[in-house]
């Protein structure tokens, strides 16, 4: 789960951000403590603290004195915005590179995306019905 070649504190921050984006960590909910994160990932607590500090600086988390760190209101929207902006760099560029290797043109790629999207759509509709 931990990537060898990237700064650990960044990965910790990301894992908390992921939880916020996915909704498992709601706004105004208490974020895991530094010690909890360190113990869970088996890392140095100072590193975990650095990750949390970064999120506080960023405004994603805020501190309630004597209690702990909480998810700031609006954090999810901010993160979604951030990730959408980075989406092209992180996902589209590699996709294009791989497509080029395989000889897929941009149109072929677009068709593939649309087909898959509708397949997913159908699957989740079914699920919605049976629930």
């Amino acid at each position: 789960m931990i990537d060898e070649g990237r700064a650990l504190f960044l990965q910790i921050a990301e894992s908390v951000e992921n939880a916020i984006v996915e909704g498992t960590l709601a706004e105004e909910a208490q974020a895991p403590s530094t010690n909890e994160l360190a113990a869970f990932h088996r890392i140095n607590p100072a590193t975990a603290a650095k990750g949390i500090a970064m999120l506080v600086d960023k405004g994603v988390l805020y501190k309630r004195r004597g209690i702990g760190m909480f998810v700031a209101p609006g954090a999810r929207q901010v993160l979604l915005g951030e990730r959408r902006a980075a989406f092209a760099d992180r996902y589209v560029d590699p996709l294009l590179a791989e497509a080029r290797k395989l000889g897929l043109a941009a149109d072929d790629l677009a068709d593939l995306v649309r087909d898959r999207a509708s397949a997913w759509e159908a699957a989740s509709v079914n699920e919605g019905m049976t629930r």
Partner: protein
Amino acid sequence: MTTSPDLVVQVDHLTKRYRETLAVDDVSFSIEKDKIYGLLGRNGAGKTTVMSILTAQNFATSGDVRVFGEQPYENARVLGRMCFVRESQKYPDDATPTHAFAMARLFFPRWDQKLADRLIEDFQLPPKKRIKKLSRGQLSAVGVIIGLASRAEITFFDEPYLGLDAVARQIFYDRLLEDYTLHPRTVILSSHLIDEVANLIEKVIVIDRGRIIMDDDTDAVRDRAASIVGDTAIVEAFVAGREVIHRESLGRVSSVTVLGALSPEDRRRLAAAGLEVGPVSLQQLIVRTTQHSPSDTAITTEGAVR
């Protein structure tokens, strides 16, 4: 907000010479309070020598060493706040682990017997069996338990894992982190199992052939190198002008490790060129910078015609 760090150890131009060999060659570094340091390097690089000199068990040929601001030699005030159980530690004849821990309790004012008892169980150490009859792993466990339970303000662990199997090693790392979280202290851990300790250590100091070649925050070092894989010609074109620390080829494919962060622009260029970028783990980075095989080009800047 930056506060000036509390330095508990300061080493200035430390040199240790044995006859013709320089075991430690003009080494300078400082250790900040309550952080976990990794003192990494190959066997015989000088790690144990440095730690021995810091604890006044060995003597410097030249240079200055200060612990808590004072010189450690014959300094009970300073020495009593440190604990250094070396890798091949000798114990009194016929002593059992129970004896050893009873003796340790006499000298380490913060000794925690409950912690020691718990660790004895964790490591499945037979407490009444004579130390000279213990297996290599059990012997290591004795040293590890003394180090952990001592709660010494500066605790050294000298290659503590020798003879410990993977499960025992993980127990050690877990207990170390647990105890450090509840009772912070300065820890200096020497190891050549770099990947195993990479997530524990906040700072990394690498010693190679008696010299310090790296002294940094672990996270800063992690981002420092990247591995670029692809068609040899294309890779070479990309790495021209960059610091290369390692290269491998198989047929027309090369994997080259470069130092220096890659900008987003770089990454776009790489993706466009069909090259793959991979992370370089701490262990790989250190191994590649300390390899000295004849075919290895070591640290060299590209540009020269080969």
